[in-house]
């Protein structure tokens, strides 16, 4: 339906023009609707991470409007994906959304973590090896943390895609020692900043080492990094990922080599161990012991000999690299090298002058990712790719509706009565409404919307007006309404739930999350596609579907 036909070069130059408008991300707004989610780029224990455009800084004259509209509706096509890919990293922000309702008592710790992030920033040095942090705000029960976006993905993505066929002639089996050294160097620089502020990262691994498109390396995910305070100098908590964990983190202490006494806790040396494991991961594409169950191996790591690259089977490493890793992987943290010592290690020094070509690899990985998404779109996923990743607690769809949804939830509350003049309202009625809100809410519309309408096929264009008439209480809209801004204006619903976007899609995304096997996942996706099609051809189908389920549940008084 869109007549946009961009050539590749056009897209590239368009993106370039937008780049020039880039300003520094300062004084960002705390209004969630100012951030346009483009993609879901990560999922963590603490929350999901999104790639987003900061709308107030978008130059509406330069940024193609139709692309913006389509992104808003997650109606992607190849051009949009390409355009987004051409845009600079600096055009986006990464947003981590944490549901505070799910973090029980940790809320204070989380606040301190954010404060730590703020003090970690340095105004002068723009290129430090730590992901930049811009802002935090609270929206409803969610915490939005706005950070720098790194378009190159993580170092793990890089390794995952090895061996790489970069051109017909050259095939890259593994990273060169040169490249490994430069990554190690920048990671150590990042660690030095952290350690200087009295903090331990505690979760160094390839997945937490991010790359920008131009090959800069940034440490990220301080979600578990603990700040050492002066009462408790060493951390005594058990965090990290088992394969990368230092022995003293697991044992919560170590034995002094001279006196044989046990010293409790651990310090910044734990990060050095994890760095050693990470280097092995860079060399062999996986950390040692990965073939074991994580929880079983945890108990064994302290007893096993530290891993080494001495007799590496995948390829032969230089003696410098071997000794570098060995000095990181000393079981006793006192004997382990410090970050500054590692900077002066021959392995780093020797490889310092040569410029490693990581950018080439990053580009390659980006291209691969783009191709993947494009083929998915070609297969008819059409934005479903993103939908499937939709986390349960961020309402995409029509962004205007997000705040309305929240209002609705508030409405369900009990109105206490504090003044004497106020009559006691019919309470039982009110409460039963609360109890079965979903059912009673849609009940009215069902009366108007007989199952008969399902049988009469309606064209996409006419369906809009028909629906409008039929749904006097208008609990829903369908997609075609959203696409047409004029229509959307006419429908001035104050409180609406888009049944398809707000109920069915999240339900399906949860179903997909819950399916264990890929086959199951595929089946669910196919079912969702069927739903999608049916909804497109027979608008209002999802309404009736959900209504019927709600009815039945209500009838049987089922509370699952």
């Amino acid at each position, binding site marked *: 339906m869109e007549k946009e036909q961009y050539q590749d070069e056009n897209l590239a130059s368009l993106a370039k023009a937008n780049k020039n408008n880039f300003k520094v991300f300062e004084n960002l707004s705390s209004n969630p609707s100012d951030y346009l989610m483009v993609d879901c780029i990560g999922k963590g224990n603490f929350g999901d991470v999104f790639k987003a455009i900061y709308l107030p800084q978008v130059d509406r004259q330069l940024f193609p409007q139709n692309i913006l509209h389509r992104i808003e509706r997650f109606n992607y096509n190849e051009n949009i994906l390409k355009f987004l890919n051409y845009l600079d990293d600096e055009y986006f922000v990464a947003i981590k959304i944490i549901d*505070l309702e799910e973090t029980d008592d940790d809320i204070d710790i989380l606040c301190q973590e954010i404060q730590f992030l703020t003090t970690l920033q340095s105004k002068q040095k723009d290129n430090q090896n730590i992901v930049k942090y811009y*802002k935090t705000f609270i929206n409803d029960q969610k915490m939005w943390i706005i950070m720098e976006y790194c378009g190159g993905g993580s170092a793990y993505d890089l390794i995952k895609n090895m061996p790489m066929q970069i051109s017909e002639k050259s095939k890259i089996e593994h990273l060169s020692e040169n490249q490994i050294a430069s990554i190690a160097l920048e990671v150590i620089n990042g660690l030095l900043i952290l350690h200087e502020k009295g903090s331990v990262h505690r979760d160094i691994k390839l997945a937490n080492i991010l790359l920008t498109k131009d090959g800069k390396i940034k440490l990220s995910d301080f979600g578990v990094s603990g700040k050492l305070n002066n009462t408790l100098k060493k951390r005594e908590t058990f965090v990290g990922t088992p394969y990368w964990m230092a022995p003293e983190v697991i044992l919560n202490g170590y034995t002094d080599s001279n006196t044989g006494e046990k010293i409790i806790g651990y310090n910044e040396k734990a990060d050095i161990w994890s760095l050693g494991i990470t280097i092995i991961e860079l060399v062999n594409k996986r950390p040692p012991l990965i073939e074991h169950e994580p929880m079983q191996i945890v108990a064994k790591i302290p007893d096993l000999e530290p891993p080494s690259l001495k007799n590496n089977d995948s390829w032969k490493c230089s003696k410098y690299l071997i000794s570098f890793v060995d000095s990181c992987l000393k079981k006793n943290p006192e004997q382990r090298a410090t970050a500054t010592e590692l900077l002066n290690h021959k392995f780093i020094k020797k490889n310092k002058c040569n410029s490693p070509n990581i950018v080439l690899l990053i580009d390659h990985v980006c291209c691969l990712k783009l191709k993947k998404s494009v083929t998915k779109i070609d297969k008819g996923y059409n934005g479903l790719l993103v939908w499937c990743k939709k986390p349960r607690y961020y309402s995409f769809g029509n962004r205007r509706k997000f705040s309305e949804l929240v209002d609705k939830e508030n409405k369900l509350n009990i109105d206490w009565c504090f003044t004497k003049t106020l009559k006691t309202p019919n309470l039982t009625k009110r409460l039963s409404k609360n109890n079965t809100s979903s059912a009673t809410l849609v009940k009215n519309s069902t009366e108007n919307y007989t199952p008969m309408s399902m049988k009469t096929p309606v064209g996409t264009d006419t369906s809009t007006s028909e629906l409008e008439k039929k749904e006097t209480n208008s609990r829903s809209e369908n997609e075609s309404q959203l696409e047409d801004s004029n229509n959307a204006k006419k429908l001035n619903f104050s409180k609406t739930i888009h049944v398809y976007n707000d109920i069915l899609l999240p339900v399906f995304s949860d179903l997909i999350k819950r399916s264990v096997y890929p086959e199951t996942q595929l089946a669910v996706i196919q079912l969702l596609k069927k739903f999608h099609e049916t909804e497109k051809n027979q608008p209002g189908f999802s309404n009736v579907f959900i209504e019927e389920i709600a009815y039945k549940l209500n009838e049987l008084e089922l509370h699952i």
Partner: protein
Amino acid sequence: MSFWSKKSHATSSQQELSTSLEHINKLNELLNKLDSSIIINNSINHVPIDNHSNIVNIISANNSPIIAGTINYNNLILSTAINRDVNSEQIYDYVDEISKCLLGLKRIVLVNTSAQELATKTDSLSNRRDSVGKNKNDIITNDLGSSNINSTGGTSAGNLSLSKKHVNTNHNSTASSSMSGDSSMLPLSSASLNLDNIYDVFFKNDLLNRLLLKFPILDFESKKNISILFANGFGKCIDNKFVYVDYMSSKTDTINLLLIILENTTHTLSNSVEIYLVVGLILEECLKFEQLSRFVINLNSRSDIIWNLFDNCLLPSFEISTESFQIINLIFLKNPKMISNEFFNNKNNLNKFINSIDELLKHGNYVTKRQAVKLLSTMILGRNFNQLMTAYISDTNNLKVIMMLLNDKSKNLQLETFHIFKVFVANPNKNKNICDILIRNKQKLLKFFEINFNNLQEMNLKQEKDYIVHIIKDLPSNVSKLYSEENQSDASNSSLNEHHEESKEDIMKMN
């Protein structure tokens, strides 16, 4: 092999000691230079000649923003005002160098802090370390005493020469003690002593205060470094005494200065968040100690510091609001007895606290609400805050706030609020107005408890909930019936307080 590595460590820590002392002296020197150049600068220009000429004169007279015992933020800004037209390059150079010194000092301190831990944890060596340590401390404190007298009254030149001498003596003392010490324990002892020395000099030279006086013109990194330096050393305990805390409480203008800067950064535009955090961190360290906390509380009667912090909790900036709350938390929970006896005994303070926390519960964002409700419930259920509990549960306004919060859609908030609500209900001597509201909402409340708190995991909570529901059920179903009962209980009003005590014990038992 081990012998050699230790040997080198020992010498390096000696070097570090001398370099760090040099850093401190240089800081001292630079601050003096900065003082004098600013005075010259300002006297040349008479910056804001109309309104503030008086103040400028006063400042240039004694070079301090402290006038008649109080610090005024305007004066602080003025005393560090730099006229960009004249001669300012020199000042910026000084600031740069101060920044470098602080960085160097911080590095040494951080490295040695971890080294010191190793030392203190090794019990077998600690005895001997102590004996050596004491001697050395004596020497240094004597040394410092003299230098301090001089630095407060003396000229910068005198101070300078004395400082140099001071380094030398320190150096010598380290050398002599290392000679006398057993070679095997050298690295440990000198590492820890090293730190003590640094902090001794740092605090007794009043460096913190002097740096804070120049806070507005220091660069951001130095500000951060000051706070790290401070946080690392302040709580240190030497011979079972918090030496630096004692020192701080004898020189209260420093903490005064901190509060002034903290209060005023919210109005300044640039870097306000970062400065607020940095100063807040230093203040937090201070508030951990009762004597300093008491000072802040007493100050509140004059300057509303604590109430301003409550206001700051409602600011849109996430960092500022959470930092403010952390400070509030420390003030009220760290030394509960003191707060109860010395702060809440003033009715004004008590009412103002209740108003302020209600404000947070009403208008805060999700995080503020959760933190505030947690603070309130800890205080109300805690043993030390009897008067707070009695006051809180007898005001209908508070009940309204709590009931609104009970209705929040967040389960966590509901649960935490329940812990406060239950005190209202379990109170055997509810006053008439409270009863009124409860009776008016009896059915709703019963319905509410039917819907909510159904999946409680803890047995205690379940019992509590049942108990509360039971009490609500026993309430008369309309208000008129209550009046007769209420009249009776009015008669027994004299023993109200005792009953409150009982009710509290009730709650305690329930817990």
